[in-house]
């Protein structure tokens, strides 16, 4: 009887423990202690990990952890991993591709980063130039571009690709849906957009009321097209494996 109760208890613990694992948002622990060097990367970007591994595991004069990270991330920029890294992907509303990148040295706590950088293909190399040659942490936009070129990186270059332009063209033909706008008109179409100053949480009816009051009759005719105010799934962002940060 006692062993039966113990067996039952064991089964319950196994079953409940499994649920906890699944319910805990996928926490998953792996061993792997004490086997340096080690390279870890988001996603199955095997070539990037191999590129970093080659640098950090080289016999004799192995590269530093920083050099290995730059090599691995640069490999993904060249390979355009998943279309979410490097030039030629993720066009903005104007069809342009811009790059964000960061490098951090866990020994010195130094960081170099670039954001919304235009016309330069080497994102993480530019970030490392910020870390190595300035006291700053983050440079952005066209000023980051000028800095990178002044430090010897190739550019300016067009970061679009036939695929990114085609993606952008189809999106525009689909009334620029989905998009990242809210509380603007026209919500269901391409811009230019105009703000609706409505306190958050108001209903669509009050939005119409605001528009009539502020825009007058001109907006009357627009309400026939219900998508004038109705964005496609306003809260359903299209974040997925091939569209994310």
């Amino acid at each position: 009887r006692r062993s039966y109760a113990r067996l039952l208890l064991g089964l319950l613990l196994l079953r409940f423990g499994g649920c906890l694992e699944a319910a805990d948002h996928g926490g998953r622990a792996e061993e792997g202690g004490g086997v340096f060097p080690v390279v870890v990367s988001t996603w199955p970007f095997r070539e990037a990990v191999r590129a970093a591994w080659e640098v950090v595991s080289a016999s004799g004069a192995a590269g530093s952890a920083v050099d290995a990270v730059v090599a691995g991330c640069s490999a993904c920029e060249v390979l355009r991993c998943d279309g979410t890294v490097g030039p030629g992907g993720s066009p903005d509303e104007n069809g342009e591709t811009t790059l964000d990148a960061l490098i951090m040295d866990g020994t010195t706590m130094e960081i170099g980063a670039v954001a919304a950088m235009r016309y330069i293909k080497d994102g993480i190399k530019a970030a490392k130039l910020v870390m190595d040659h300035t006291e700053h942490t983050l440079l952005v936009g066209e000023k980051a571009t000028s800095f990178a070129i002044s430090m010897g990186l190739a550019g300016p270059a067009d970061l679009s690709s036939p695929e990114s332009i085609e993606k952008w063209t189809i999106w525009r033909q689909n009334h620029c849906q989905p998009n990242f706008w809210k509380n603007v008109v026209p919500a269901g179409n391409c811009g230019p957009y105009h703000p609706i100053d409505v306190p958050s949480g108001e209903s669509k009816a009050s939005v119409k009321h605001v528009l009539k009051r502020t825009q007058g009759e001109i907006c009357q005719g627009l309400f026939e097209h219900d998508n004038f105010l109705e964005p496609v799934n306003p809260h359903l962002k299209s974040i997925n494996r091939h569209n994310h940060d």
Partner: protein
Amino acid sequence: TISMAVIDKMGHVSVGTSTNGATFKVPGRVGDAPIPGSSAYADDEVGACGATGDGDIMMRFLPCYQVIESMRQGMEPRNAAMDAILRIARKYPDFVGAVFAINKKGVHAGACHGWTFQYSLRNSSMQDVEVITVAP
């Protein structure tokens, strides 16, 4: 987005990120990849973290800084990763994102919300890269 961490033979830690960001973003929009402590963070004394997902939401919570500080307080990588994800999911139940955590002993883990996540790993006990899948 790639977010990568390397611990070399001397135990020095580095992280890096690179991305072209969200598709059809409003021009000028920056994701969380270049934001210190959001998509990546490292400290030789503790370990490293990498993250990916909806950068507009994630950068508000600095998940990787959180992971490092949790591990600094003694939390295991798995619990530190889940804690960081849960802090965001509690405020934004629909958010999509993931983190990996690795401590200075090389113990690693992943956690995710809203999608299935994978991270890649190579250490000196492996012959090639291994891919680990983490379900939400």
